[in-house]
Every structure is written in C-alpha cells, then in structure tokens.
C-alpha cells in the first residue's frame, strides 16, 4: 500500500482529499502546516507528497525546497496544490523540483491520475 503525505492548512479540503485517497486504497498522512509536513516526511517515509502552496508561515515552495535539501526526502515526488493561477508561479514550482501541480479547484479524477503518474502506477 502506497503512502501519501497530504499538506494543506485548509482543513476541510485536506480531509476531503484524504478521504477520497483512502477510498482509492492509499494510506494517508495529514499535515496542517509546512513544519509538521517536513517532520512527517522524515519520520514516516511516505511515497509522495501533495502540498498546498499558499500556507501561512511556511509556504509550499519552502516545504518543497526543504524536502529537496534533505537527502532522506530529496527523492520524494511532490505534487503542488495551488490557487495561484499565474503561470510564472507554477513554473517556479517546477524549477525547484515539483513533480507536477494541480490548480484549485480540481476534479479528483485528475488528482488521482497525477498521483498515479507520480507513483509510476
């Protein structure tokens, strides 16, 4: 069973997403902010990360950079979740190592397809 770390400060969205991923047979770990996410990624060795960009204190780009900077988590595929529609912002995400990104609002089947692509399924 693959494990996915879901990071979003917006509780409702995070819970919904986790529930659907659980129904699809994934094991899910939730994190409500960047600092928790980085600790969870180190301790629980998930197979991938879905991470919101616009979060207070530590945004998704910083989470991504910190994961990439740590040898134990550098190889984790990270799927960014964003409400910022600007291309430049997404390009920045890909340049610093995001596997892909999803624009809010999203259809779950799209998320599922990108998750499976990230996990090589």
């Amino acid at each position, binding site marked *: 069973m693959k494990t996915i770390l879901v990071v979003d400060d*917006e509780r*409702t*969205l995070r819970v*919904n*997403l986790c*529930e*659907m991923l659980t*129904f699809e047979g994934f094991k899910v770990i939730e994190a409500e902010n960047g600092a928790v996410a980085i600790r969870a990624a180190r301790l629980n060795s998930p197979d991938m990360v879905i991470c919101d960009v*616009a979060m*207070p*204190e530590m945004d998704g780009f910083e989470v991504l*950079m*910190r994961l*990439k*900077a*740590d*040898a134990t988590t550098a190889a984790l595929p990270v799927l960014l979740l964003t*409400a*910022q*529609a*600007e291309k430049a912002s997404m390009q920045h995400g890909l*340049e*610093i190592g995001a596997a892909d990104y999803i*624009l*809010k*609002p*999203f*259809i*779950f*089947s799209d998320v599922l397809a990108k998750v499976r692509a990230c996990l090589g399924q």
Partner: protein
Amino acid sequence: MNVQSLKVLLIEDSPDDARLIDQMLKQVRPVSFDLVTVDRLEAGRAYLAHNTVDAVLLDLSLPDSQGLETLAGIQASAPTTAIVVLTGFDDYQLGIEAVNNGAQDCLVKGRVDGKLLSRAIVHSVERARSAQALRESESKFRSVIEQSVDGIVLIDEDGIIVEWNQAQERIVGIARADAVGRLIWDIQFQVTLEEQRTPAQYQALKQHYTAFLENGQPHLHDREIQRPTHEIRTIQTSVSPIRTNKGFMASIVTRDVTEQQQVQLALEEAYMFSQYTLDALSAHIAILDETGTIIAVNEAWRQFADANGLNDPTYGVGTNYLAVCDNAAGPWSEGAHEVADGIRKALADQDNELYLEYACHSPDEQRWFTVRLNSFDVNGVRRTVVVHYDIAERKLAEETLASERNLLRTLIDHMPDRIYAKDREGRFLIKNRSDAIKMGAATPEETVGKTDFDYYPPDLAARYQADDQMVIQSGQALVNREEPALAAGGSGYWILTTKVPLRNSQNEIIGLVGVGRDITERKHAQERIDKLHAEIDTLYAISKQLGQTLNLETIYNTVHAAVTGHMSCDGLYISSYTPEDRLIRCVWAWGDGRHLDASQFPPIPLADDGQGNQSQVIRTGEALYLPDYQARLDAAQTLYVVRSDGSVTGRDTASQEENLPRTVLFVPLKLENRVLGVIQVFSYQLDAYSEGDRHFLRGLAPQVAAAVANALLFEQTQHEVAERERAEKALRELNDILEQRIAARTAEFQESEARYRAIVEDQTELICRSTADGIVTFVNDAYCRFYGMSREDCIGHGFDPYIFEEDLTRWTKEYNVLTPVNPVVTIEHRALGADGKVHWMQWTNRLIMDGTGKIIEVQGVGRDITRQKKSEEVLRQALAREMEVNEMRSRFISMASHDLRTPLAIIQASMDLFSQYGDRLSEERKRSGYKEVDKAIQQMVALLDNILTIGRVEAGKLEMEPEPINLKAFCQSLITELKTSLGTSHHLNLGVAGECDRLWLDPKLLRHIITNLVSNAIKYSPPGCAVEIHINCTPDQVLLSVEDFGIGIPTDEQEHLFETFFRASNTGDTPGNGLGLAIVRQSVELHGGSITFESRPGEGTTFFVVLPCIPLEERFDEDDSGR
C-alpha cells in the same frame, strides 16, 4: 658415640703415678687409650700446639706450675679439649674449684681404678664435645640473632627482657644494655607515642603481656612508636610463645615498616588517583592485558554498559576484548573488526597507536565513536589502553551543518539575485546559479577559483577588480550602486550592486560577498520617467523662450531647434490658417537640413470633410499621426508633395522617389479653441514617432500658438506706430497748408492712440513699469485686475510687490541678477490675486536703458502659469498614483484568485466525494460535508458581495436607502450571526446607550459598517480577546465605536487605511482583501457621517463612526408638517 680409641695426654711429674695410670688404662676395654705422657706444663702445651688429643689428664701440682694456673695454662692451649684434673687426697678442694673453672672432672690420685678412670675420661670427652657443640650452636644462633634485620627480643616468664639484638636497638632506638633485665612493658611504655603515655596505657601494656605469658597466644600487630630521639616510626610486631616449665617465654620479632607503609600509602594513593582520573574521563576506557583481556574499565565504560542493558556485573573485566570485537556482527560491525586488527598490531608491538572513527547506531539513536589505542609495557608486560569517545553530538552537528549548508546553497541558488563571494585575490569562492548563468558559466562550481578576467572583457573585469580591492582594503561596504553590466551573450543590462567585506572569526577581511540585482526593468521605467521630466523641462524652457520674443522668425527658429533637438526630423513646415478666406498658407519651411522659401508654396483652400490632411487637422482641432504616409496619400486627396529640394510636384510623380516622407505628424496650433495653423513634421523612416514624440509636439503647439498670436499682434502694433509716424511727418509738412484739417487729424491720432492702448490693455499678461528708483510709471488693466487695484493706486507709488515668504529668498536672488550686463530675468513666484486665490506668476523683467547705458526704467511682464504648474504636478501625481493602483490591483487579483479558488476547491472536492464515494459515507459525514459546502459558498458570496459593493462604490452607484430600524436589535442579531459564522473565541461585548429603537438608517450599509469593523477587530487581535462595541444614540446622531486590543496600525500607514485595496504591512498572512474599510467609509459617507480611528501598534485600534440621524418620530413629524 662411637668411641673405639681415645688419644689422651697425661701431664704428670711423678713417674710412678704416670706408670700406674698407663697400666690402668691399658687394661680397660672396650675403649683403647693412646696415652702420651709429659712431666711439665710447658711440655704439655708444646705438645698440644702441634697435636690434637681427645682428653688431657692433668696433675695441678707440677714443677713449672701450681694449682688453677696449671688448668688455665692448658685451657689456653686447648680450649675445647676435655680436661680431667688429678689431685692428691688433700687437694680435693682444689679439684672442685678446677671443675668450677671449666675442668670436666676431678679424680683423686690413688683412689681411682682403671674402670673409673676410663669412664671419667670417656664422660669428660663427651661432656667437652657437648659443651663445644652447645657453644657452637649458641654462637651460631647469637650470630643469626645479631645478623637479623628484624629486631628480636626474648623475655622470660616474668616479662623480663633477656635478649635484645642490634636490629632492635636500631629500630627502637634503645641500647641493648639499657633494655636487658628490664620489664618489656616498661620499655614499650617508654617508646609509646608521647601523647599516649598515660597510666591507663601503661596498665594496658602490662596486662597485655601478663595475659600472654599465661596463655601463650601468639599474635601480630602494627603500631607506631616514638624513639627517645622523638622520631616516630611504624613497626610490625610478632609475638610468639616459648613453652617452659614455669609457663611461657616470648620471642618478639619487630620490623620497621615505616618506609614500607609510606610506599604502600603512596601506592594506594597512586592507584586511587589513576582510578578516579579514569572514572572522571568522559571517554569509555578499558585496559587490556597482553592477551587482549580486559583488566580494568572506567566509570564511563560502566555507565555505557548499563545504558545499553548489558547487565554484566563485571562490566567485561575478565572478558577477552579481541574476541568481543571479532564476534561483532550486524550493520555496524566493520568498525569493531578494525578495532580488533588495531589491538592485535598493538599487542604484537607493530603499531602502538590506532585512531579510528566508526558508526555504531542503536535502533533508536544514531551514534558515532572514535577509538584510540595506546600500548605500553609494565615490567616487560604489554598493556593496551582502549579509549572510546562518543562523538555523536559532534557528528550530528556536522550533519546538521551540512544539511543547513545544503539548504542555504539551495536557497541561494534559487534567488533571482546574483550572489557570490570572492577571496582577497578576486577568485570566486562561491557563486549562485543565477550569477553563474548570467556570466556565461555552465555551473556555479565551474567558476570556483576563477576571476572576473576569465569571463568579462578586460576593462570591465578591471573595473570590478578595482571595486573589490576598494571594499577589501577599506573594509567599507559598497552599497546599492547602480551600474551597467554585460551579460554572457554580450547584451547590456543594469545591475544594482552591493559588496560587503567578508571577515573571518578574527575579524580579518578575507574577501567579500557580493549581491547583484537586475534592475534593467526599473531603470527603463526610470528612464521613461526621466524622459518625461526632460520633456516637461524642455517644453517649459521653450515656452519661456517663446514668451520672451515677439518676432515670428525667432519663434519659428525656436520651434525648429526644439523639434529637431527632440525627435528625428527630416522636414518641418508651419502653416497658418485664416478663417476669413479659408486659406492655408505655408509660413515657414525646412527640409533636408536647410530653410526653404515658404512663399513658393501656393496657399491651399480648406478642403471638405474627409479630404486633405491639414484640412482635417484644422477642422477637428486634433493632431493627426500618419505612420505610413505613402499609403495615406492614396486615400487622401493630397494636392501636392514637397520634394527634398523644395520643389513642388503632383503626388503621382513623387511616388518613385527614394527620400519620401514616410511618417508625418500634423499638430494644430490652437488658441482658445481657434486653430491658427498647423505644424507638420515628417521623417523618411516608417512609423518614426513614438507616443512620447507626439505627446511632446502636442504639448509644444499651444505655446507656439500663443507666441505666434502675440507676435502677430505686435507686428500689427508696430505697423500702426510706423504709420502714425509717417502721418505726423505728413502733418508737419502740410501744417501750414492744411491747418483747417488739424482738428480732424488730431481726432484721428487720438483714435490711433486709443487703439494702441487697447492692444496693450487687452494683453492677458500683466505689465508694470517703474523707474530705476522703483516708482511705478505704468500698469496695464490686466495688472490692476489681477491685484484688484486702481491705476491711481499704483502709478507714482513705490514698486513693492508682495512675495510669499516661501519664495522670498529665491526671488531676491534671481531679481538681483538684473544688471545692465544681464538686462532680462525671468522669475517665477506665487502671488495672491484679487480673487483671493494663490496664483503662480512668471515675470519677465527687463531693464530699459538709454543710448548711454543708463537705466531709465524696469519693465515687468507677468504671466499666470498656475495651470501649467498644476498640470505638471497633476502629471507627476497621476503617474505615481497609477503605479500604486496597478500594484494594489495586482495584489488584489492574486488575493481574490486565492480566496475564490480555495472555497471552490472545497466545493469541488466535496462534490467528488459525494458523487464517487457517497455510498461509503455515513449520514453524519454527509451532513457535515453539506455544511462545509455551505460554508464555502458563504465565503465566496461574502467576497463577491464585497467586490460587487466596491465596484458599485467606484462606479458611484452605491445608494442610500434608509428605512426605519431598531438599531439595538439590529446590532445584537448581527453580532450573534458574526460570532456563529466566524466561530471565534473572542468576547464580543455590546453596550447600548440612549434611545436606539426607532431610527432612520440604511440597514444594508449599516451591515457593511458593523460587519467589516467587527470582523477586522476579530481578525487582527489574538483569540480570546475582548472586542468592545458601543452605540450611543443622541437626538442628533448615532455614535458607534468598535475597539480591539490587537496588532494596531503602523503610524506611517494610517493615512492610507481607507484606500481601496490597501493593506497594512503588519497584516502578514491574515487573509483579507483591502476592500472592507473602503466599503465602510463609503457606507458612512453615504449616511452623511464620518469615520475616524485611534490606533497604537501592538496595543489596539478603536474606530469611531458618527452617523447624523433623525429619530423616526421626528421624521414623521416633519413629514406631517410638510403635508
């Protein structure tokens, strides 16, 4: 005793006695006697000197010696030989004395037979031999006792000392002579430590020995003694019993152990010292013997063993450490094997030192150790010290450092700014990706050790090097310097450079750190603004020049110089238009670098609508820009084209020429909505004029128009003056003849004079003349109108213009420049007009001099340039405002995008959850899901409401629709609703005073006001804080205040608080869109009210809203009265 034969010397002077004895002894059996006889003492001694005999038979009365002397003489010659004394019957007493003096026996001559004699000799020989053996034995023992290093004392059954050897003398410091014969406890009390010499101690000693002498119990003890010389020694005493008939004697053996004990103490101290030292060390230490077996460990080793749950009470002591290391298995066993190899080498004396770092992680902890081996030999036995240091902390710190460094590196690499560090020689130490790529390197690593000379042209690199050296030598940072730079492709750009000295921990400069930011975009924007400023300055300068001349040719030349100086221009034409004859005339022409004769160009009649370019401009009064003029020619009814040599052709023949005007710009010369003419500029390039160029020419045209109009008026005046002079001359000539017509002519003059004056008076410029002494000689109507003074008030009085204090210094300075050498000065200053308003005036002051250069008058011509000044200011402010608004709008769009997409994403995700997995969800989960969707929709609706409201505010469509409301109930309900929807822990306290039940207010706007103020108070103060809301209704107004104890508003930002999209800098990540307070202010103002606030950063904010209000009753009363 095996006595077969005994040799006997008989010393006897009586031959009869000698013969008798000889015969007696010969008859005796089984012992045979070999008898030698002499008759004198000396003869006996002589014999004994050379022979050994078993016994001597001695007659004490000899011719050469008598009595005991004789005995002594023989004893001296043969001290160990048995002597039997022979005496006469009457000498027996002497014989007894002889025995007492060492003779073995005494016989009386004549009373002995052979048997008795034989037995006496044999027994004497035996006794002598026993005594000799005893003497030898005693001598041997005495020698042993005297030679012994131990003190030996013998005491008899009564405790009296009978023996005291030399060693004892030495040890105790009491001579044998002083000890023998005394009681042992007396002597021992004598050497007892001075402070212990008490009667009780004496009794104890005495009792101790008395008891021993009764029971003979051997014992051993150590004690300290004090010699008579006061020296204190430690002795070890062993007391052993010797059983006798009377009881026990004792032998006491004493050993001085003072030194031995000192050595022992020193040894013990050394041992404790080394053990405590080892235990105090934090390293885990074990000492191995020559086989690798652990013989000692320290406290750290024991604690480590305890901490690892080894439960070994020996802590490995006795275990072979080599075997432990050899048997180590698992992921971290390599280190153990290396340690074993090292120990083997150390034991084999191949390599006495080993240092090794190894990892030894436990399941729940990462651990690293170093191990160090040191071998040494003790008395030829090899010992090895194994020292383990726990370096986990250092290792973890190193790993954290590496991780931090990596993070820092990643951050630096992803910064858009260029970041680098150099050493003192300018070699790159570190560089981020952005900088490496910008200077043409493939990777940042490639640049390490290289210098600017490897990447930039030599002159540029040298300049960078000079900067670097300046920073390094002076220690002063170079901050935010703007400079041109060169990118890898050779393209230029602008960069903002900061270089800071890099110091090591000793504060020595070891290089520098540089940051470069690409500011090309900003620079270009700045250039555009600078250009705009330059344009304004140019226009202003030209306008000044134009204002100072009334000569048309000068005006045209000024225009030409300004245009060619500002933009690409291959041709410039100025034409005039007179509505009276509807003709367009070229008045000034210039092409291909030379003046053309404008009079050659035929006038053109104003064409009908839609035809002719100049005609279109004159009709519409608007500029016309033709970026592709040749294409336009086909469409427009252009009459003729001016060739570059100035000749005029029809347009068909012109089309083949090379130097054709391809871009033409027409701008009307307009004065007070009347088009006086057209300026025409062309270029051989297509689309040659930028928006700026067109803007410039449009700005220039009104100045030109005004100048031309003035010049034309002046020309006309000049013309009339000349005419008058001619008329005067004619008058004088005809004076005599035409006297009767004087009156008529005079009237004509007066009319002309009035017209001249009217021209001057009609000028919009203010004119004032004064004498060199400052007495006003002339002012025109415009002057009088402006200042609200009559001409009489001015003329003849001192010229004393009122100058605003702000302008006074500058005015004085510029006015003093006015000298005969520099007779014209233009000064700008503010003046208070008769209309009560402040006007910006531009005065051109000119000295009027006579032929000798003497100043006659000073003439000032003033223009009101308030509008010009204002438009400059408005332009500047508009530019700044536009940039600010753009910035705020883009922030708003980004925010709104996030705030709309997030609830949308919640709705979409909930939809997906319900539609795809609804069958697996509980009813409870579904209900909570619907609530979440509802909340998301409410959020979006609220944001959209705000956006729509602000849209209405900006379009001016937000209207007040008042109705009767109960303000108290309204607020209570609204606050309850807010508390529920925001789910906050803040305490919302509502206080109401006055009559608030029936008021005439707009509930929609009121809702905007209260909702936004209260939700702001909640958002910007910590959870659990109070928010105080107070309403106070008076007959005239409603006072509403909302007070929080939150973050406050930075003082320098407070003036912008109500601007649309504005958000204070301390709002951080708190969601918000900068609309709320703008809506609040508008809602308050629509009520005719006002809003103010007091705020202290970090303490809180209070908003005060005042709404003018008529209670409902009064309103209806008024309505009633109005009916």
